[in-house]
């Protein structure tokens, strides 16, 4: 978490899309600037507090964790915590980590491609019952995941795939919010004139989609991907319902079970803390590295 600060040192006040930011629009500009920055600073401190605590706590062993002073670095056992983490229960944590990567990265890639394609079709093509079908998509957006989890479990146990990789992987591909988002983004990013031009050139519809539209939808794709990646990485209820084999667990479920065991065997506490810290890293990396890409897309994407 501390590593992210140096990556964004040049936040110049110029907006990327040529926003006239430096223009004076009030006599009390200096004070409003101060107030605005103070408010955001307080909000940022609020968001940072638990993360900073997690970072500090990960350097403590079980005794020091419940000891008096969290800020003292006298008892630095980050490295031994780390080796304990990967050694515990026969390296189970490493397996969870790989599982989470598999569910989230592959799932989000496939899922966003499916969602973006559907959203694009909703935006660019006319067909009968289109709005009815889209209404179904919106209903899908509104239905809580947890409400679907139990019915999904019942269906999965009916066809005998409970407690398998697919029981978690297939449901997470379904992302109606991604379709909703992709429809809006497609409307913004891909001008109809481009399609017309491509048609005049004699290119097929799917050819146009793959070669032209998908490229223009790139930033939108990343946005959908990022949201879905986060959702799958954070997914907890579905795996909890579907899986009983610890070797198939994603990180969230694994850490939950360890946290539950910690009430009986406190040696799990530091492992939950450092395990949580490591579990948070990939998404932060993904967000930082993809941030520039999809944010420039969002600002430059105003096609009008």
């Amino acid at each position: 978490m501390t590593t992210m600060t140096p990556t964004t040192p040049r936040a110049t006040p110029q907006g990327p899309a040529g926003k006239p930011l430096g223009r004076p629009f009030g006599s009390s500009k200096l004070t409003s600037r101060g107030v605005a920055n103070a408010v955001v600073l307080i909000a940022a401190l609020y968001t940072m507090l638990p993360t900073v605590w997690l970072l500090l706590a990960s350097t403590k062993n079980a005794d020091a964790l419940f000891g008096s002073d969290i800020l003292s670095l006298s008892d630095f056992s980050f490295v031994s915590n780390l080796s304990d983490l990967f050694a515990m229960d026969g390296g189970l944590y490493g397996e969870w980590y790989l599982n989470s990567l598999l569910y989230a990265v592959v799932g989000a890639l496939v899922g966003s491609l499916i969602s973006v394609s559907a959203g694009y079709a909703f935006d660019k093509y006319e067909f009968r019952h289109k709005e009815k079908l889209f209404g179904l998509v919106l209903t899908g957006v509104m239905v809580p995941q947890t409400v679907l989890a139990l019915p999904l479990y019942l269906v999965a146990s009916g066809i005998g795939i409970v407690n398998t990789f697919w029981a978690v992987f297939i449901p997470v591909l379904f992302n109606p919010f991604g379709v909703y988002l992709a429809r809006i983004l497609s409307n913004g990013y891909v001008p109809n004139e481009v399609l017309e031009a491509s048609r005049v050139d004699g290119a097929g519809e799917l050819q146009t989609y793959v070669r032209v539209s998908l490229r223009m939808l790139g930033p939108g794709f990343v946005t959908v991907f990022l949201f879905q990646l986060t959702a799958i990485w954070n997914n907890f209820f579905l795996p909890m319902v579907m899986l009983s084999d610890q070797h198939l667990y994603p990180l969230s479920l694994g850490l939950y079970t360890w946290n539950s065991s910690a009430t009986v065997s406190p040696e799990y506490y530091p492992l939950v803390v450092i395990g949580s810290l490591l579990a948070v890293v990939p998404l932060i990396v993904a967000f930082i590295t993809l941030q520039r890409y999809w944010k420039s897309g969002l600002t430059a994407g105003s096609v009008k």
Partner: protein
Amino acid sequence: MSTVTSSTRAPTSSAAAAPAKPLRKAGQRQQKLAAFTLLAPFTVLLVAVFLVPVGYAIGLSFFSEDHDGLGFGGGETVFTGLRSYLAVLSDPSFVSGFGAILLYCVIFVPAVVVGALALALLLDSGLMRLRRTAQMLLYLPHAVPGVIAAVIWLYLYTPGLSPVIKLFAQADITIDFLGLHTVLPSIVNIALWSGLGYNMVIFYAALQALPREVIEAARIDGAGGFRTALMVKVPIIRGSVVMVCMFALIGALQLFTEPMLMNQATPMVNSRFTPNMYIFDAAFRRNNYGLASAASVILLVVTCALSYAVTRWAGRRERSAR
């Protein structure tokens, strides 16, 4: 698989006259084919992991398994009609779950919407230094899985472990985050921490997509930054505001992870604290799938009714605003 999709998509073939511009026949057929191909995978998923399970749960809610009392499998499944629904609705622990959710919403929804909107407007105002860094820091909690967020905050709520409680104690203030009246705000705080930056990004993206001419026109007309934000920007992005409200409400109904972890730490949160915890409890602790399905269907209906009401209300306001 193809039969499922084609049954949903079949009526498409007769929608020839839909596009405004008359196109060549071959082109139309190709367009329809493209729309079909692009929609097919999603439609399969829609049927397989949404419509079928929901239908199955509705069906199951009318049945009940008669156990032989010893818990051995092989109980007989019998049609019981609305008995499960009556059992759920007359269960005070289920109804009180909705009470908890309602109270939670009253605190959470205004807090997250106003907070996120204010932060997004501040970031968009051009007054900010280090906009990207600030945005990233605020978004950070969304990258923290709900379970982990709940674990961290739980530690921060625990006396003896929490630096926050220690800090207040030095000022002679005793705070019990897990008491009778504070446990719900404590849960709200976890959700707020997780959701603030995420919703801010949604608002910020909407603000960034605003036509710059409109903002500039307002400024030329002499509107200050604050007035531009409230009178020009917010009304234009009210669609996003409604969307965030809606998702906050739906998210509230989903409430599960945080109280589930709190349940291990404080007696103030029982194992049926929210409707979803009730469903989990019914299905996996009491092994009563009929009851759990009925509760799921009720929650589903309430959710849909609520979001339908919100969108209708927003739609009417939008129309009257024009």
